[in-house]
Every structure is written in structure tokens, then in C-alpha cells.
């Protein structure tokens, strides 16, 4: 298994390289640059800034320099936030996004899996319809509707939770609900589908025939197999959720990573965009690997 993991990690290097190259080319192909503003810079000042950030060099040279810096874990200075570096921006944003993302993920799993399994075990009965109605609602209500509504009721009309900002755990309640609800609904639907399928399979029939209790059949035998599709969904979803959400961050005033993707692109902050894209790429690779390793543990048929 170790050699499998190593092989996968080595294989990820070209992938990330292509990702980086594509991001570099696309950012540079976009019209306008980091120093374009409604108050235009005097030509000499612009030239000096471009020299300072090496934008006056030929593109291939800039690319080479960038790859060299990346190899030394240096994402470079931010073009937009002049007083700081991309490393510092990611280091300050990621812990917040991680906390928020992990909590939303936990919320989605803790409520989504039992809800889905309940629906599966009571298939085509009121409990099923109820659970799936909740799931449908969760999927269809966009978080940019849910979030302001929660703020209005829980923070403005009532003094139960803070309306935004970063403080204690209370500040995380609404963002977690806003971010986790849709995912919870999705997980519930996946859990329902896979549980229904698993419950019809031969080994479950065998387990039942052996006279095992219903609880044991469901929790010990059916659950691990039913989790497999959820796990494969979780890999990329987790990478996505812990790199932040621009909508949630903007509405609740949370300093996560998500805003950097959008602000970076709008400001033509080349280094910041490349930094967060690469960071996201690395997370995707890592989570996909973790998922594949988890398969082996959940499903005895999988071997490396």
C-alpha cells in the first residue's frame, strides 16, 4: 500500500505542473493587468513597478522564475495586497476555511448519513418521503438565500447569534449551516441510494439468513459498503469545502481562502491566483489519494 501511495504522489507532480502552466497562461492571456486602475499610473511609475515584479521580462522567463520559486515553496508577493506575500495570505486564510469546512463536512455527514439510511430502510413510506423532501429542499435552496435569511431572523430580529465577523464559536453556527445544508442533502441522497442497493445484495441476505439481528446487519455489514459512494464524493467535495466559499465568506465577513480565488482573478493578482489554484490542486490530489486508501479499508474486494 505504501508503494501504491508513493506511486500516486509521484504521478501527481505532472498533473500539478500542467495545472500551474494552464493557470499561468490563462491569467496572462486575460486583458488588463494588476496595475490597471481608474487612476492610471504615470508611465515611469508603471515601468518601475513592472520591473520590481519582473513583469517586464519575457513570459517564458517569468514562468521559469515562478516555477523556481514554487519549488522553494515561495508563492511570491501579492500584487493586490502590496504589504504582504501570498504565503502569508494563504497561511492566514486557510485555518479559517479549514475550521469552517471541516465543521460543515461533519454536519453534513452526521445528519446526512442517518437521514439517508433511514429513508432507505423505510423505502416508499412516509419517513422516506419526509427525509427526501428535506434533502430536495436542502439541495434547491441556494446558500446565498439561506444565509441572509438566517442573519435576518437569528441576528437582526433576535439577538441569538452574531451577524458576521470572526469571534467565538457562535460566529461559525450560521456559516456552517449555510455551507453544510446542501452537502448534507446530497449525502443523504447518496446514502439512501447506496443503502437500498446494498440491502438487496446477496451477502446481506446471507447475513439475515444466518439469523443476525437487524441492527447488526445494518450497522456492521451494510454500512461500510453503503459508505463507498459517499467516500468517493467526499474526496473532491472536502477539498472544495475547506478551500472556502466566496459567497459565505462575503456574506458573513469571514476571512477564508474562498475570496482570494475571486478577488485574485478580478484584480489580476497573478501570484495570488496561482498560489490558491496550486494549493487547491494539491488538496484535491491528497484527498483523492486518501479516498482510494479508504476504499481498501471499507471494501475487502479492493486491493492495491
Amino acid at each position, binding site marked *: 500500500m505504501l508503494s501504491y501511495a508513493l506511486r500516486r504522489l509521484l504521478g501527481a507532480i505532472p498533473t500539478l505542473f500542467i495545472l500551474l502552466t494552464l493557470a499561468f497562461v490563462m491569467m496572462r492571456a*486575460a*486583458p*488588463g*493587468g494588476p496595475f*490597471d*486602475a*481608474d*487612476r*492610471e*499610473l*504615470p*508611465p*515611469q*511609475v508603471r*515601468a*518601475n*513597478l513592472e520591473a*520590481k515584479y519582473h513583469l517586464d521580462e519575457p513570459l517564458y522567463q517569468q514562468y521559469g522564475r515562478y516555477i523556481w520559486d514554487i519549488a522553494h515553496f515561495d508563492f511570491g*508577493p501579492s500584487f*493586490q*495586497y*502590496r*504589504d*504582504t506575500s501570498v504565503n502569508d*495570505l494563504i497561511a*492566514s*486564510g486557510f485555518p479559517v476555511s479549514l475550521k469552517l469546512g471541516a465543521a460543515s463536512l461533519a454536519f453534513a455527514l452526521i445528519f446526512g448519513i442517518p437521514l439517508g439510511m433511514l429513508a432507505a430502510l423505510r423505502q416508499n413510506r412516509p419517513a422516506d418521503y419526509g427525509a427526501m423532501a*428535506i434533502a430536495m*429542499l436542502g439541495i434547491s*435552496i441556494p446558500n446565498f438565500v*439561506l444565509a*441572509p*435569511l*438566517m*442573519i*435576518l*431572523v437569528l*441576528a*437582526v*430580529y433576535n*439577538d441569538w447569534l*452574531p*451577524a*458576521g*465577523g*470572526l469571534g467565538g464559536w457562535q460566529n461559525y453556527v450560521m456559516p456552517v*449551516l449555510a455551507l453544510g*445544508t446542501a452537502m448534507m442533502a446530497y449525502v443523504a441522497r447518496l446514502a439512501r441510494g447506496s443503502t437500498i442497493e446494498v440491502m438487496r445484495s446477496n451477502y446481506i441476505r446471507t447475513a439475515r439468513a444466518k439469523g443476525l439481528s437487524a441492527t447488526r446487519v445494518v450497522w456492521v455489514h451494510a454500512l461500510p459498503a453503503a459508505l463507498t459512494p459517499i467516500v468517493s464524493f467526499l474526496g473532491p467535495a472536502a477539498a472544495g469545502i475547506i478551500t472556502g466559499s466566496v459567497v459565505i*465568506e*462575503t*456574506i*458573513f*465577513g*469571514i*476571512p*477564508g481562502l474562498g*475570496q482570494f480565488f475571486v478577488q485574485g482573478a*478580478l*484584480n*489580476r493578482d497573478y501570484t495570488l491566483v496561482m498560489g490558491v489554484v496550486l494549493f487547491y490542486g494539491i488538496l484535491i490530489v491528497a484527498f483523492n489519494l486518501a479516498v482510494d486508501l479508504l476504499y481498501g479499508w471499507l471494501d475487502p474486494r479492493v486491493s492495491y
Partner: protein
Amino acid sequence: MLFVALLITACSSDESEKFPVKSTPEIREDGSTVLRRGNGAEPESLDPHQARSVPAANVLRDLYSGLVQISPSGAIKPADAESWEVDDDERVYTFKLRDDLRWSNGEPLTAQDYVYSLRRSVDPATGSPYAQLHAAIVNAKAIIAGEKPPQALGVRAVDEHRLEITLTAPTPYFLGTLAHSISYPVYRPAVEEYGAAFSQPGNAVTNGAYRMESWRVNSMIALERNPEYWDDANTSIGRVEFYPITNQNSALSRYQAGELDWATTVPISRLETIKKHIPAQLHAEPTLGVYYYGLNVKRPPFKDAPELRQALSMAIDRRTIVDKITRGDEIPAHGWIPPVVEGYAGAQFDWAKLSTAQREAKAQELYKKAGYSQDKPLKVEIRYNSGEGNKKIASVIAAMWRSVLGAEVSLRNEEWKVFLDSVRQGTDTEAYRLAWIGDYNDPNTFFELMNSKFGLNGTGYASAEYDRLQEKQAHMPDEPERMKVMKKAEAVLLADSPIIPIYFYVSKYLIKDYVKGFEGNPLDSYYSKDLSIEP
């Protein structure tokens, strides 16, 4: 279920009946007060010479103190300089600095610090977007252009407490530029030791009423009172927090929930509700800003076509745009200089007072004179940067041009940076929208933009007559004679119509009742030190 419950609660509380606003100031255990300000976007830099945005300027005004400052009502008053003398030619300013000036680390602040900082502000290596604000100082233009070293700047420390600044010609608005962040002093040892990171907490040494406490991008900038500040005895608020909140509705929610004492933006859709429930907390202040359409005079159809440009300008009913689209009490613009600019009653379009029918008839007449008719309509494109407001205004203007003149108008929106690039290049733009915000309270900050040599003029307008008048008034003593020249310059500009002013901006703030000392000023220059919190 959560959603349904929320929906029921939200809908059952009738908006017109209920608009709760929590009104409890934050007071710390030691009795000192905290001012929580919404601040729009995240400042791009807190280096006074690099900063370019309003949110950055708001924070810098608390962190630093310049030679002069803007009083709550907008007047220029002494700050680091307790007095100054001007020679008879109005070219040499000698500032007498206060004896007790100190940096936040206790080190004395001297005239040498100002010399270093002013040189740094125009040094092309600094990359300052506002370097041109110092263009009046001897050799500044040559330094910005990289032709002379920064040491050549006409700035000299006569002694520890006296600073001499020499101008190339009398400049009536010069003192106003000294209140701008480009003129703040920076602490040389920190700049040299930390480079770009000198503004970060721990590194930052400042000389204003507050010092840097913490800075988390996209979350909050916190400042603490600076006991070394020369006027600390008159400072009341102990701590200032700036929150970058780009979403206007979020800012309003946080204001209502008691998490902000001052919200810098108001969602237009809620303006009526706010006016009804908390009129005393709403402050609408006309500012030095104009929303305008530029016409690219380097290309057809606007090249050599002043009649056409006038006709298009005339065909726009500004009142309708302000009343129906922007709806924020903006002022319709029938001239180029905002009416709040001090000491100048602007010129107006000669047709500004005509009735709608007369105005439209005149526009049609000019349109015909320019060679267009129903059979040969003008085909023109309006370009604007993406944004709901810009889109609505462009649609309405297109409709007015169509119905009044019969022009064929197409709309094109572009993302901000793409748009700026297009306007700068000017190779395929026709009519485009932009805005201009004044840097100091003098008409020149608007006049200068349209000078062909200023470099920020995307219309390509180049009138020798206008340039001459603009340059003349910029270096005349501030007397009635200057007023005449300015009016002439504005009249030339309005007749040539390379720009179509649409409306003048009005800033809107929500400020809690317990925050005292706020007065509106057209520069939007507010210092937290001038405020107090009295529950």
C-alpha cells in the same frame, strides 16, 4: 424545516413595522470606548505612498498625521505644522513643526523625516499612484519621469523643526494636497528594515492619533490610541476597528445587530425603510465625485463632431436617472465641477434651464446639424464595466438617445480590468462610463483630468485653449481673477463636450446616535480622533 421556519419568521414580521437597530456601544473594562467602522473593501496597502483606495485612506487618516489636516467640516487646519509662512511670490512655504512631535515608538519626528518621506513619495521606485499630486513642487515632475534623482525635490529641512517646500509657481490648492496620504511622513528605519512589510503590526511606526494593533486581511484592522500623538489629550475613542464589508446588505445587518457603529454604505433598496425608521442615523453628504460618460474624440463618430457630442449630452434627462435609477439623492450634473467644491460656483450647460421639450428640440437640431437624420442615424456603442447600476444607467441613456434623437445604440459591458484596458488604449471605444473623485477640495482636481498632458484622460480630448486656461488657473492666486479663468475653462470644456457629466455623488453613512462629533465634509475625510462615544 429550518428554512421553512426561517421563512415564516421573516415574512410574518412586516418590514414596514419592524426595523430593529441595536444601540449599545462597546465600552471596555477600563472605560475606554471602541469605534467599529464598516470600511467597504480590504485596503490594498497601508503604506501611505502606495495606497490608492478610499478604505485605505480611511485607515491611514487615523494612523498618520500630515502637516495639515481636514477639520470635521472640511476646512484645512494645522496638524504637524503648527503654522506656516508663504513668501510674497507664493512659491516658498516654510512650515513650523510642533516641538513635541514623536513617532509611536517615542522617537522624535523632525523636518528631516518629512524631507525623506516627500522624496520617497515621488520616487518612481516607490510606485506611488498619487505621485502627481506633488507635481507643483520644484523638480517633482522630472523625478516622477525618472529624469532627476529624488534628492532634487524642492524640499529642505531648514532645521529640526522647520520645513521649506518650494513650488514651481503659485499653487492655490497646494495646502490641500498636504492633507492627502501621499504627503504623510513614514518612519525611515522601518521602511528600510522591513521593506514592503513595514506597515504590518509589529513593524509599523506611525505618528497619528492611533497606532497599528492588528491586521487580518478580509477580517479586521484594529488600531489602538497612540499616547505619543501630539494631540492625544483631545482624543476620546480608545480603539478603532475597521471591518472590510463589501456586501452592502451584510453591512446593514451588522449595523442593525449592533456590531458596527458606522456603516459606510447603504443598500439603495433599503433607503426608504432607513429614512422612515432611523432618519437621524442616516447622513447623506454630497462629495467631490462625478459619474460621467466619456466620448472618444480620437475616432469617429465623435472625432471633430462637437455638435453631435452636445446633442447626445443634451438628450439625457439627468433628473430621471437620479430619481428613478440611482435613487440615492444624487445631484444631476449640468456642469463638470461638483457644486460642493469650495469657493467656486461652477459654469452650467446653457441649456440646463430649458424645459424638457425645448431641450430635446435643441438636441435634435444639433443632431441634424451634425449630419444625422432618421434615414442616416448615428450608430454608437456605450461601453461600461459590469455592475447592476452601470447597466441600468446605460440602458436608460441608450433609450433616451434612441427616443430623442433616433440613434442606434448598442451596449457592451466588460469586466473592470478589461474595461480599463479598453479605455486606456482607446482604439475601439466610442462612449464609455467612468467616474472621477477629487483628491483635494479645489476645482483644479477636476479641471486637471481633462488636460491633454495629464495622462488620465481616456477621451483623447486635446484643446490648446482648454489646456492653457487650466494651467493658468492652477497657478494663480486664489482671487476673483482665478474664478473668471476657471469659469472660462469650464465653459470651453462644456461647449466641446468630450465628457457628459451625469450626476454628482452623495455619500451615505449610517452612524449610531451615541457617536458624537460627526460633521459631513465633501472630501469624505473623517478622523476617528474627532469623534467620541457617549452612551
